[in-house]
């Protein structure tokens, strides 16, 4: 079965410090990987995706993520965190080999950036 794991329920970081939100996946084929952010009482906002090519993907608001096939990971990073980055972050995967329309989401990681 395909699955996505975000091993940390919450990540705390001080403003100005680098941040990492971890994501690992388990799929039977080649994955497409996505990161979304959700602010309180809002829908999901797309940050970035990996389809193919360069393993380092740059996205919105200074976020980037690195695809690591051997470690089956797709960690989200930002060099310098802002208080406004505090939100709930979701990693998601869909499969290249099937056309189900379905995104499989991790359980989410709450990022808390303190001033």
């Amino acid at each position, binding site marked *: 079965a395909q699955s996505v794991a975000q091993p940390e329920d919450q990540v705390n970081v001080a403003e100005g410090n680098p941040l990492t939100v971890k994501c690992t996946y388990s799929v039977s084929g080649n994955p497409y990987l996505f990161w979304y952010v959700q602010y309180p009482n809002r829908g999901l906002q*797309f940050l970035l995706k990996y389809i193919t090519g360069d393993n380092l993907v740059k996205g919105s608001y200074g976020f980037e993520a690195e695809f690591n096939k051997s470690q089956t990971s797709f960690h989200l990073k930002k060099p310098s965190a802002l208080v406004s980055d505090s939100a709930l972050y979701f990693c998601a995967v869909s*499969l290249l080999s099937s056309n189900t*329309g379905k995104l499989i989401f991790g359980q989410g990681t709450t990022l808390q950036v303190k001033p």
Partner: protein
Amino acid sequence: EAGVTQSPTHLIKTRGQQVTLRCSPISGHTSVYWYQQALGLGLQFLLWYDEGEERNRGNFPPRFSGRQFPNYSSELNVNALELEDSALYLCASSQGTGFGAYTQYFGPGTRLTVL
């Protein structure tokens, strides 16, 4: 460019009632997806519509149904509401299917409370 819109924002219903949620995709998008975000259960795929046809459904009972109209807007219907149907219902749209490569853009959601 307008994003995905959903209506209503909030709904309160009682057990056994029926509810209809509405979604308008981004202009030019032909695929619409529905997800349920229930407390403690994370984001679960419900339905996928493309070009007016239901293409896939998640592991939900038949009382969850929907349709897509010729203008690509969509409705999600839930019959015989149960307490556990209380959740945020998110609609997303994409340009096509592309075997999962196209990004799904999400609306703000409809918060359904079942009493």
